[in-house]
């Protein structure tokens, strides 16, 4: 009976171990499958995010790069097509043809509230200084850089280059045969020892004929307003580029009349400790999973 009892206990113990092993095995299988499913879903979400993000950049035509204490905006002004219309159509196309039932997308503002792609704000903000690079509308006929007065000292200087693609510089020394100077891009109020709000502007322009003009750096007192016209011409006098500086919060205003430019604007800041709020956040999430990717688009 003793032996029988021991055998019975041994058998019971072995059965318990087998049950525990089976349970552990099943849990591991579930974990493996769940982990792999999560990985596949994450891969799908990231793929969709990058796919849509590249198209939004293609439509808006603006590229922003941060490097140490500088921010460079590469832009085309004005817009070569109706950007608002294209954004709206793109949003419709995504909904009708691209999205699958297991993926959701949303464009979010700075407060993480959803916004319609056709209402995408035409503004990029450098934080925490709240320096803005924006257009009044997506026609991009005018470009502004503004800064709160209290944060203006964060801007050490601006380097602006405009490459004119549909007109030529109609002034000296860009065109050596002319006598009219390109422009006396001189501040209406130059900086002196008492100037508090100093903008150091380094400006250059080129055109499709290979002509080139440069100026700077010059110091503008942004407590006052300065306006400079750059002489351009293309068979008609009704072409111009106008630069306006100050007073704060206006730092720079680039106005275009019948002139198309590739603009490169570099802001030199007094710190590298800043971040950029782009046009909007793009959120792509997987339905039924806690997986999503949210980042500035």
């Amino acid at each position: 009976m003793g032996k029988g009892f021991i055998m019975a206990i041994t058998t019971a113990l072995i059965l318990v171990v087998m049950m525990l092993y089976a349970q552990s095995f099943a849990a591991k299988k579930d974990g493996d499958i769940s982990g792999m499913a999560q990985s596949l879903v994450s891969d799908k979400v990231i793929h969709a995010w990058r796919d849509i993000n590249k198209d939004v950049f293609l439509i808006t035509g603006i590229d922003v790069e941060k490097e140490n204490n500088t921010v460079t905006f590469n832009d085309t002004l004005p817009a070569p097509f109706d950007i608002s219309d294209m954004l709206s159509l793109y949003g419709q196309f995504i909904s009708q043809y691209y999205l699958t039932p297991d993926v959701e997308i949303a464009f979010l503002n700075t407060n993480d509230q959803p916004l319609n792609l056709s209402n995408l704000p035409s503004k990029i903000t450098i934080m925490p200084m709240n320096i803005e690079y924006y257009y009044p509308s997506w026609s991009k006929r005018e470009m502004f850089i503004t800064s709160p007065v209290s944060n203006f000292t964060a801007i050490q200087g601006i380097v602006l280059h405009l490459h004119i693609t549909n007109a030529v510089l109609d002034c000296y020394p860009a065109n050596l045969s002319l006598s009219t100077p390109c422009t006396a891009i001189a501040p209406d109020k130059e900086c002196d020892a008492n100037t508090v709000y100093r903008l150091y502007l380094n400006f250059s322009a080129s055109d499709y004929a290979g002509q080139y003009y440069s100026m700077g750096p010059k110091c503008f007192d942004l407590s006052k307003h300065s306006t400079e016209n750059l002489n351009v011409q293309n068979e008609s006098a009704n072409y111009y580029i106008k630069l306006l500086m100050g007073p704060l919060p206006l730092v720079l205003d680039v106005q275009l009349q019948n002139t198309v430019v590739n603009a490169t604007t570099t802001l030199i800041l007094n710190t590298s400790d800043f971040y950029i709020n782009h046009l909007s956040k793009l959120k792509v999430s997987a339905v039924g999973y806690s997986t999503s990717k949210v980042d500035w688009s």
Partner: protein
Amino acid sequence: MKKAFIFTLDALFAIVVLAFFLTAISLELNVPRETYWLPSIANSMMTSLDEQGAFYHAFREDDAQVQSALNSYLDALPGGINSQITVKIYTVSGSTFSLFKTIQASRGTIGTKDKTFTKRIFIDVNEKKFGLAELVLSYG
């Protein structure tokens, strides 16, 4: 008789243990592992095709040329993978999209299991055209 009963129970117990392990091994061997890397291959291939401009040619170039190029990309996939890629171009009037053309390339026959499907969107902002590429991969 008592001994026989015990021996029978012992044999049954051995069979149960053996059955358990055989089942576990069988389950492990039958996991469709190919399913797990097919979607990654599909996504990577679509990204690569898009970044190389393969889809944009469909907006303007000869369809036969585009199809030939897509076929050569599919031929570069590892053996055992069957594939089919469909590129659709849409025009728009107002806010209504119309299918302008479809270009398709394939290799092998798409199976019914171990299959994955992925999409890629691309646009021509100057011509106001929209494109959708759909890739189906299957293994075995």
